[in-house]
């Protein structure tokens, strides 16, 4: 049953989600994974992806 506390929590949902996202991005393991994924993406982009006009 959706209750008053659930409704109260709804108002701050975006704020919580944004803070969690920013905290996750600062996590050392996550930073390493992101860095690796980004490097791979940029390499792929330069080699294979079509350039937009």
């Amino acid at each position, binding site marked *: *049953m*959706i209750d008053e*506390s*659930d*409704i109260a*929590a*709804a*108002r701050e*949902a*975006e704020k*919580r*989600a*944004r803070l*969690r*996202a*920013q905290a*996750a*991005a600062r996590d050392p*393991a*996550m*930073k390493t*994974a*992101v*860095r690796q*994924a*980004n490097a*791979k*993406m*940029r390499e*792929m*982009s330069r080699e294979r*992806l*079509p*350039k*937009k006009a």
Partner: protein
Amino acid sequence: MAFICVLNDEKGWGDLLETEAKVSVNTVIGYDDETDHVYHLYVSFDRQNTGYFEPSFYIQEFDEKDEPVYEYFHSTETKSFLDRESRRRVLANVLAMIRTILGRHKFDTCIFYSMDVHLPPEALLKYTYVSAIFFSFGYIGEYMTTSDGQHIWKFLRAPL
């Protein structure tokens, strides 16, 4: 801006993080060949202090030094760089990532909030798809719109 989407349909996988308080999957969705920024899609289930898990999905933009620049939670914002086909692929991947997570974790209760208020029926459609996934994993659900116009879905895992 020249965003290039690299998503395939329903990949549903990427870097997986699983802790007591958080389960998330992220995958690169594309790249901007003018700014060198890279965009990641995240689907995250985070434990609230109530013990419920709160799903959310968002796109995070990283700059050329791999620092996070911005988190996009609103489709009105992502329309500035995602075309219609890219948005379709992002949604397909969000749904596949939710399937992946629900296939690995049996959460007792999940509570899901829209980030926007007073969503029109076409914008609510994606949440209908999300609900259908929960139902397919045996959850029962409840939905309401608050007096402020925010949408809430609560899913409980049905007893066997």
